[in-house]
């Protein structure tokens, strides 16, 4: 492992972090809104999100590829085979998971909590924030699940990133490459890094969850 390319680890962290940030930014408010409101089409929207939770990453990769390709509607961005394309694909993959689990966590808070918090003088946004804080163990699980989906994802990352050395190569795509080349020891070492990274982030999440749930 003397020639280990540390930029792969750094890029993995960058792409995963950016995709997780975006999917949290989209998924948590969407899940909160769905968990607190009932309206015509609510069940349909939940159904779509649940479908999105199980969406095959290669299909997402294909759609993003086609959108960013030379003849696609987003060709002018010139993002194909860049980390940005990987971030877009992984955000699309993880957002339904974050939104779906957040919806369940928010919906599980007592229905009377919102009127009780409002009766203490909370404005609409303050009340929603209070509900979200009560649902935070579930919301943290949602974010952890999103992280797990993103960091383990390889299909879409390969399709839209292209596994270009020094540019879009991340731990998962590097493992695929090393395995294909018969470099099993390197592939296993990279796998160790990947598992270690996932473990570290999840332990940090658990610690945060423990500190906030008292």
């Amino acid at each position, binding site marked *: 492992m003397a020639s280990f390319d540390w930029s792969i680890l750094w890029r993995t962290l960058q792409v995963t972090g950016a995709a997780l940030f975006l999917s949290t930014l989209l998924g948590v408010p969407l899940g909160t809104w769905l968990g607190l409101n009932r309206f015509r089409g609510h069940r349909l929207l939940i159904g779509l999100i649940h479908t999105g939770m199980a969406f095959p990453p290669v299909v997402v990769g294909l759609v993003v590829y086609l959108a960013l390709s030379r003849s696609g509607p987003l060709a002018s961005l010139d993002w194909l085979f860049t980390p940005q394309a990987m971030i877009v694909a992984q955000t699309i993959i993880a957002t339904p998971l974050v939104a779906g689990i957040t919806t369940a966590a928010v919906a599980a808070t007592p229905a009377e909590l919102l009127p*009780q918090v409002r*009766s*203490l003088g909370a*404005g609409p946004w303050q009340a929603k924030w209070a509900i979200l*804080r*009560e649902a935070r163990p579930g919301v943290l699980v949602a974010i952890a699940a999103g992280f797990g989906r993103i960091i383990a994802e390889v299909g879409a990352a390969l399709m839209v990133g292209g596994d270009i050395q020094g540019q879009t190569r991340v731990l998962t795509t590097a493992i695929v490459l090393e395995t294909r080349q018969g470099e099993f020891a390197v592939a296993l070492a990279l796998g160790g890094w990947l598992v270690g990274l996932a473990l570290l982030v999840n332990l940090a999440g658990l610690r945060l969850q423990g500190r906030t749930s*008292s």
Partner: protein
Amino acid sequence: MSVPWAYRLNGVTHRYGERTALHIDHLEIARGEVMALLGPTGAGKSTLLKLLAAAAPATAGSVRLGETPLDQRLVPLEVLRRITLVFQQPLLLSGTVRANVEYPLRLRHQPRRSEKVEAMLDRLRLSDLSSRSAKSLSGGETQLVALARALVLEPEVLLLDEPTSNLDPARVALVEEVLAEFQRRTGATFVWATHNVFQARRVAQSVTLLLDGRLVETARNKEFFENPTDPRSAAFVRGEMVY
């Protein structure tokens, strides 16, 4: 400009689906007094309190807090903040007892919060619990913390839904004493829902009896208990089954 009543209700109906849970032709609640809302379980007391707190809209009719209508779809926050409702089954937020009592003050960015919180916890003999997790409290302790959380705000209108239902007699006496002292000091308007005739007699200046979602009688305390005009009020006061 100022009207003598805190609330005025006209032709108010509240329905849950097809069922009419509450119908009141007319009711005025005096400003700066304690009105006991008397009635058995399911009489519509909690529904009425929710309408008074603007926590639920009336299906029909008008509810006014002073001159301000509460039946509009979006009641301004500054109006809502004049009213505090203590629910029958209060829910506390995650965190310590102290953080829960401080919460409504924090929402309003009030100064000297910890001073007010400590004084209120002390008054309700909750100081020993201040660092405890709110989720670990018993039902009675939860009810006391919910009361402390409402009183610390010094609201203009305090709506109480069976606030002593989970308390032992000593704590009931403490709560009645604290609430009476608070009301005298601040001149707040209280609407105190209870099914306990004796409590209503002890704490209120006026009494309203609700039965089956209908207003039976509203009168001054002495009049209601000593000379009720409606036979159902007389029977309820005697402890007879009138529902």
